């Protein structure tokens, strides 16, 4: 059973559609990155998953509990770290964490040990007596993380867990996530691609309230190096004329993983050609050159699939990634 199941989730703030029917699943024990530019709907989704916001429509199940029916049961299984780490400034770190532990139902006997463990993991033990009001942003973030760990919830939902950290601390957080992934399902949001590549096994990419890509990082990486082309061409009068000739020839080529004819309109054929993993971009050029040399008339060559970077570049309005 999946740890998170999101089905056709919509969220509207007044006239603004923040989420437009997103669906995805996160399997138990998998560290998943939730990737998207600022304003894509990441925090909204996480807030709905954590039970802070209600959805306009759609279904969300966390650890098998439907959020609209059994929010408390779901909440007991979630360690949620909000984006801004809101904390009570008048409390000391250990006072705050003890309060949170009690709130989360950690028994009195275990509370001290549990708070101690969370402080050790997030490296705030030496600041435990400090007032939260006096903490730097990085430390506040760590207290928020320690809070999420209290009570060892099976699911951790972390909203931008590395924002506000310096590079050393980011490395520490990554190490921590690595330690935690054995016992927890982790779902973390970020707008930094390298973050996902460094830590996550799976990723869900969201843009303007819609899921635009999801899958394992390896899958997404493979899609980055290969590509899918849509070829529109005419074989009449060429060496490729005749049933199956072009298909056989394409399938024989080393650079091509898969080829299928998706449409025929009179003599004009449309082919979907998937390039194999690790193929250079120049494979497209030589493919076209060879087809032309065999007398095939080419009307159009269009790239279809998008890489993770390209998806992300499109989303963020950046310019990196190939066309």
């Amino acid at each position, binding site marked *: 059973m999946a740890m998170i199941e999101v089905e056709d989730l919509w969220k509207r*703030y007044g006239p603004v559609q923040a989420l437009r029917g997103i669906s995805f699943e996160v399997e138990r024990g998998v560290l998943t990155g939730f990737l998207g530019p600022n304003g894509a709907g990441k925090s909204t989704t996480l807030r709905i998953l954590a*039970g802070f916001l209600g959805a306009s429509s759609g279904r969300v199940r966390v650890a098998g509990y439907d959020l609209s029916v059994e929010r*408390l049961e779901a909440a007991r299984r*979630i360690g949620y770290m909000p984006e801004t780490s*809101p904390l*009570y400034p008048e*409390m000391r770190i250990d006072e705050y964490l003890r309060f949170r532990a009690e*709130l989360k139902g950690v028994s009195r006997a275990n509370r001290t040990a549990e708070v101690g463990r969370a402080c050790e993991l997030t490296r705030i033990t030496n600041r435990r007596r400090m007032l939260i009001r006096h903490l730097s942003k990085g430390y506040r973030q760590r207290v928020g993380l320690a809070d999420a760990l209290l009570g060892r919830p099976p699911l951790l939902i972390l909203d931008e867990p590395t924002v506000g950290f310096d590079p050393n601390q980011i490395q520490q957080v990554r190490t921590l996530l690595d330690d935690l992934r054995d016992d927890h399902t982790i779902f973390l949001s970020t707008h930094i691609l390298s973050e996902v590549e460094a830590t996550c096994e799976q990723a869900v990419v969201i843009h303007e309230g819609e899921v635009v890509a999801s899958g394992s990082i390896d899958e997404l990486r493979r899609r980055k190096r290969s590509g899918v082309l849509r070829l529109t061409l005419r074989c009449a009068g060429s060496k490729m004329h005749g049933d199956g000739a072009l298909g056989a020839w394409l399938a024989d080529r080393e650079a091509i993983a898969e080829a299928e004819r998706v449409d025929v309109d009179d003599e004009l054929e449309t082919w979907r050609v998937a390039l194999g993993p690790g193929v250079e971009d120049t494979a497209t050029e030589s493919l076209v050159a060879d087809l032309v040399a065999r007398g095939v008339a080419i009307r159009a060559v269009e790239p279809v699939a998008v890489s993770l970077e390209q998806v992300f570049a499109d989303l963020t309005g950046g310019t990196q990634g190939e066309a």
Partner: protein
Amino acid sequence: MSGFWPILKRELFALFVTPLAWVVITGFLFIQGLHFYLVMSHYAVSMELGADAGPMQLFFGQTVFLYLPLLLLCPVLTMRLFAEERRSGTIESLLTAPVSTPAVVFGKYLAVLVVYLAMWLPTLLYVKIVAGAGHLDGRVVAASYLAVLAVGAGYLAIGTMTSALTKSQLSAAIISAVTIIALFILGVGEYVLPEGSAKDLCAYVSVWSQMNDFSRGIVDSRRLWLDLTIIVVPLFVTVRAVEAWRQEL
């Protein structure tokens, strides 16, 4: 009601570790001390004592000094309950913990009620002083404190509600102060309106009449039902308001 105790404890912590509770209690006791002094000096020079017009009756039932601090200090006690959590964003951590909404509301409400009781506690000294000077009817004192508790609990419930309905502490305080002062003034209508249903209504909600009755030992259950309504309805609205936040931002 999961989460009720930790929330109650944390609210009390926040009230007493910041100056708020101490400022409110000090202000209250200063005014009531002055009030008590005036009452006592009045009786020190007056030789006549009616059967139901002793210093306790005067203190609890017949001067405006009793209400002034309540009307102004109750909103101050309740203003930060929800407004501050929403402004600072801590409400997100609170509502994503496995706590039920009624537990959040009652935990917070009971915390300010405890401060309210703590604020009245030292006034028992006045009772002791009066008792030392002559005979004192314990039932009258008990009725007076019951009324003070019932009225204050209603004011605090109204304050809790306005704190949940606004994001700023200041507007929460102002709206709740205006509401309970309006209720108070409505009660004054008993003395200015001509005979009729409007006058009856005003008499029914009049906190002034209530305190006057209770301070003479007349415990009218209709008054207590009204007080209970003024406690329950705002708290119910508060629970619904907090639930409604989940549907907006």
